[in-house]
């Protein structure tokens, strides 16, 4: 009651003031100082690590740990340019059909062997093989042949141009190189070229990593990392407060402000970690009618949602593209709340007050979605809709909404992807792997397909901007917000400003050190 009042007021007060309030990429914790060598860092990790095979694992949280054991053939810088990593250079033929990678010499695996083209061929073919069950196998769909003319050269021949190929290699998983023939043991004991070596895992409890002395970018500062898997957010917070943990990720949203005010800790926030949207089932009338979707969009005050559901830990957006990436369409502005317009659109679509009835399904896996649904429920009532909210566990949500597509309206969030093909094709193309909303828009389909075969980056960016405009105009989904990533650390943890990878998801522990 009180909180709802607060939300109403704050909505009036903040108006548009928060809109695009240029939030620094990193909070006030950024440190200077000289790294010291040694020490064991205890990390309170928010998830239980699952399959440790980097190619197979689907969860971002497991990758977050594994990224410290591996490196990919290429990576991205903070402007999302593809830059060399294990390949010291790469080259794409003019027709977009041949990729040549020149490998860095003397890169050592944790096993002591030296990285060669055979390992790259093995890794790529392993991901491509459907039997491997790799998450990103489709990255290699257009790969016709992989040649290894010498130890340090890899040539990838494509059957047709595939514009996102390099970018996808820089993403989690697909471009990671493992030693030739090591596939069968990766799930239990991952081996790579990364800054930390895997020592052991006590299932569900902790994972131990040690510094790899021969790391090709120079050894890390820390001797050891112990990743303690603590899924309960308040337990992580207690672990930090009692000093049992040096660093924790994912601070409960309602506790961020309190921790920020505490001088005993450093709080790091980055923007954005994920984005969220409201979904309509396009196969169900009347949600196949753009007027109904737009009417619902008009009922939502996104600013208030960010305050009320995210406790201010995020920002509104109308584009789901990574904000600093070229594909982010700056011309789209969040639709303001306008009940008159909403009612007019509903009337036009044939629904008077109280005549449209539906169920809004949300998953309790994301508590902020539950809060958001409750706030939206009030607006939907005010707009003359007859809505009930149904809360589902994660497994129920997956089976009902994601797989069976049995819902009217739902909402979901995804990690922010800077690579637009993956984002737009899989989510909005009618045949996209993530099209759980049954979106079937010929204009979107054509744009997503065209972007995929357009090699010129500027031209491609333009297509993605058009695509976003179409999603927005038709309100195919209602994009709501970007949510901040958060982590907190003891004051003696150095190098926090470099911890978060430009992709906004990975944590690079090699940059951290412990002051004694």
């Amino acid at each position, binding site marked *: 009651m009180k909180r709802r009042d607060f939300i109403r007021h704050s909505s009036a007060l903040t108006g548009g003031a928060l809109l695009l309030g240029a939030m620094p990429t990193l909070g006030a914790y950024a440190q200077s100082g000289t790294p010291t060598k040694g020490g064991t860092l205890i990390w309170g990790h928010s998830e*239980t690590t*699952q*399959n440790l095979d980097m190619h197979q694992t*689907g*969860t971002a949280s497991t990758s977050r740990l594994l990224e410290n054991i591996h490196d990919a053939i290429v990576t991205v810088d903070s402007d999302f340019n593809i830059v060399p990593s294990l390949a010291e250079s790469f080259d794409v033929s003019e027709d977009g059909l041949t990729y040549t990678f020149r490998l860095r010499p003397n890169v050592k695996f944790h096993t002591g062997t030296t990285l060669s083209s055979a390992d790259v061929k093995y890794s790529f073919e392993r991901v491509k093989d459907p039997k491997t069950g790799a*998450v990103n196998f489709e990255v290699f769909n257009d790969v016709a042949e992989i040649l290894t003319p010498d130890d340090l050269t890899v040539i990838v021949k494509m059957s047709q141009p595939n514009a996102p190929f390099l970018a996808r290699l820089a993403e989690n998983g697909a471009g990671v190189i493992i030693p030739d023939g090591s596939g069968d043991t990766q*799930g239990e004991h991952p081996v790579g070229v990364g800054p930390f070596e895997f020592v052991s895992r*006590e*299932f*569900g*409890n*902790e994972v131990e990593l040690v510094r790899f002395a021969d790391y090709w970018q120079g050894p890390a500062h820390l001797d050891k990392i112990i990743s*303690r*898997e*603590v*899924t*309960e957010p308040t*337990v992580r917070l*207690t*672990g930090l*407060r*009692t*000093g*049992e943990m040096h660093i924790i990720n994912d601070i409960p949203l309602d506790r961020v402000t309190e921790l920020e005010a505490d001088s005993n800790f450093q709080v790091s926030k980055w923007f954005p970690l994920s984005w969220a949207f409201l979904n309509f089932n396009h196969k169900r009338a009347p949600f196949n009618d753009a007027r109904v979707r737009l009417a619902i969009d008009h009922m939502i005050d996104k600013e208030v949602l960010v305050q009320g559901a995210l406790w201010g830990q995020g920002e509104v957006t109308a584009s789901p593209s990574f904000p600093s990436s070229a594909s982010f369409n700056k011309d789209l502005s969040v639709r303001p709340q306008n009940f008159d317009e909403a009612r007019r659109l509903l009337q036009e679509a044939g629904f008077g007050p109280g005549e449209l009835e539906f169920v809004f399904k949300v998953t309790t896996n994301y508590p902020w979605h539950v809060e958001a649904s409750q706030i939206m429920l009030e607006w939907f009532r005010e707009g003359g809709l007859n809505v009930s909210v149904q809360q589902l*566990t*994660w*497994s*129920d949500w*997956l*089976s*009902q909404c*994601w*797989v*069976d597509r049995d819902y009217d309206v739902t909402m*979901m969030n*995804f990690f922010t992807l800077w690579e637009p093909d993956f984002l737009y094709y899989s989510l909005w193309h009618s045949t996209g*792997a*993530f099209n759980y909303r049954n979106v079937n828009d010929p204009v979107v389909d054509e744009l997503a397909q065209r972007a995929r075969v357009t090699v010129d980056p500027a031209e491609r960016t333009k297509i993605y901007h058009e695509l976003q405009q179409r999603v927005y105009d038709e309100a195919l989904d209602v994009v709501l917000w970007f949510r901040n990533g958060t982590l907190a650390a003891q004051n003696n943890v150095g190098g926090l400003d470099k911890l978060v990878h430009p992709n906004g998801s990975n944590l690079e522990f090699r940059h951290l050190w412990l002051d004694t």
Partner: protein
Amino acid sequence: MRYLLNRIALLALTLLLISIVTFILTNILPGNVATMIMGTRGNPVSIAALEQELGLNDPLVVQYGRWIGGMLQGDWGTSLRFKEPIGSLLGQKMAASGMIVVLSLIIAILSAIPLGVIAAVKQNRWPDTVSSGVALAGISLPDFFWGIVLILLFSRTLGWLPSSGFVSPADDFWLSIKHALLPAIALGLSLMAHLARMTRSAMLEVMSQDFIRVCRAKGLSEGSVILRHALQNAIAPVVTVAGLQLGYLFGSIIVVESLFNYTGMGWLTYQGLLNRDVPLIQATVFIIAAVFMLSNLIVDLIYTVLDPRISFD
């Protein structure tokens, strides 16, 4: 001996029934492990393929037969979600939970009996009031509440004990005890309260009997009267309750283990349920039920030792 055999046969039959009921219930629940494994990568085609691979499409009778067949040969199967052999998972997690359960039982008995005895001896005087008050608080407030209080006091304010996590006794014995101590206390508090109240009333009853008057008349010291004669007669029902509660303790570890992020059987059961991992749920429920029933059986057998008048044959 015949009694024992009967009991064991009954126990096996009950476990079989429990496994069937668990199996049916988990299969009735919506969603399955395939959707959880695939997560947001799943689509009807890939999930159907995975269901096929995991054998989820076979008739329930076949699935159950496969499970029970493996069980009878000592094979617990493999967790569908975590791809780990369940036998080894159970081994690790049983040891972890066993530690806090046994520790909490010890703490509960060692603190409850003196508390109950003092309350009985000083009936209706302040030690009785304090002891009853403590017992009432222990019974009325849930273990997760006490868990939070313990964390605040011993971890945050005093900094004596760690607030979360499990350490294997094989790695570092003392550290593992330190990690187990707070969860054990939280788990054992309500049991302690129950036992203290039971001890008090049993003691009061015994103390009013004639043979106690005889003991006093013989000139025995008050300590000897209370400890050797009264307590020994009062303790049988207390032990029964303690033993029965062992199974109950094992059942309430889910909450306490989550609170302290202590990854034992409770955690494993919770993960199984969350992921609809049928073989894992089967195994954990089976174990918890078995512990419950075995502890009852053992209590009944201990009876005959504590009170020679009782015999089952």
